[in-house]
């Protein structure tokens, strides 16, 4: 697979799953307070 495809794969993962992890993290942190 070319590097550009890997980069787009990483981009998609960071935005979607990274973003999701941050949002869930915020929800858990606020709940614990």
């Amino acid at each position, binding site marked *: 697979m070319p590097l550009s495809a890997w980069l787009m794969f990483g981009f998609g993962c960071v935005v979607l799953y990274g973003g999701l992890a941050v949002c869930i993290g915020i*929800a858990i942190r606020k709940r614990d307070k």
Partner: protein
Amino acid sequence: MAKTRDRWHSRTAFIMAAVGSAVGLGNVWRFPYVAYSNGGGAFLIPYFVALFTAGIPMLILEMGIGQRMQKGVPLAFGSVRKPLQWFGWWAAGLSAGIVIYYSTILAWSWVYLWHSLTEAWGNTPQDFFADTVLKRSSGPGVIGWPVLPLVIGMALTWLAIYLILRKGVRSVSKVVMVTVPLPLILLAILLVRALTLPGAMKGIEFYLTPDFSKLANPKIWLDAYGQIFFSLSLASGVMIGYGSYLGKKAEITNSAFITGLANCGTSFFAGLVVFSMLGYLAQTGLPADVPVNVSHVEKVAEDGTGLAFVTFPTAISKLPALNALFGVVFFVALLTLGIDSAFALQEAFTTGFHDKWHIPPEKLARVFVLIAFPISLLFVTRGGYYWFDIVDHWICSFGLVVSGLIQCIIVGYLYGIRDFRDYLNGQSEVKLGDWWIWALRYVTPVVLLVILAVNLIQEVTEGYKGGEIEGYDGHPRWATLVGGWGTVLFWAVLGYFLWKRGPRSDQT
């Protein structure tokens, strides 16, 4: 007699239900193909722009309106301006219309689940789908009788919807804990299987390799906004209905972000599953030493029903072992993906009756299913496929786009959007800035207007012909008038009567 409104068991249950409603068959059979044909990995850029400038802002709007008003879509908008209750009933009616034809796909999935045990489609999956499963006639004018196996599939679908909705959100809260994660696990099983097969990585390569030159084409941006808009269950009142069962202090904004990101994350993941399978399928048609290239993938790449009921069964038959098991895995995944969206759509409609006439959830679920089941049988007749295609096209291309546009105008210009933002910020974990107001006042309405204009121009100049079917000239004008415009207008007329009828005190 005032009664306490039902509540979600937990915030997790609400988010799961919202994700389950948003994640549906389109995530598997539409997004991967739209991405592939619109620049591959480069499509992610307009897709994310659309998610953050239209998708998530609209989700916040809908969940927020429902939660603040504590009412489903008809009475929620009726609280803004009395005549807008009519619009609310129309929007809710569209969701009822969708679940009636959407149940057809679930009926097909039940039948395929049964046939996957024996891989009954054999070497001719295209003919099997059209002739054996659908028993498709020559056009919408030749309706014929309902096809018995599909009637059984339809009955199972409506029975499942009734059982899930009979206790309202209390039963939904439990069901979504299974039906939302299960298809993801099943898709992951398929991905692991596909990745161990030749050609799979090539398929993923064609899915992800970016073609940035395509970003200059406005059509790709419209496709991205369209994909986001239809994928998130927006404009049909589902998220307003679900939001209305949240507590008065419930968090909205972060829940909307989680819902939007989880939906798009599922689409992205499903693309890996679909294209790894397509890569393998393309490889099976070639000698082992010939690598798959783009033209081979092009030949097998499809979207919609063709992908789910023709291409995937073909790929499953060509797996080296355990074909029946993987067939079952795939069709159970389709069923569990679809059922959450189906009952969410029904709930969006029936919540209005619960609000206005205080009808209990069990009675609403029972009466709706008893009325909707016979109507839905039209779509499993021999001519049903054509009617399914027409109604789907009109509700999505015109009904939902107009509904989304009106929602943006109501909240953006009539409701007091700054006050609404302050209300949301007062109880949310993520604070909204001016970007949210801009998104709802300018970006989303403009994009929806452009999509509507493009659809209307296409309808006037070419007319909607439907998907390519061998030997079929396209939908006749009378059929699109009756099934298309007729459906959209029917809900407007019914919505008017529902608005006008009922105890005066409830006509807010």
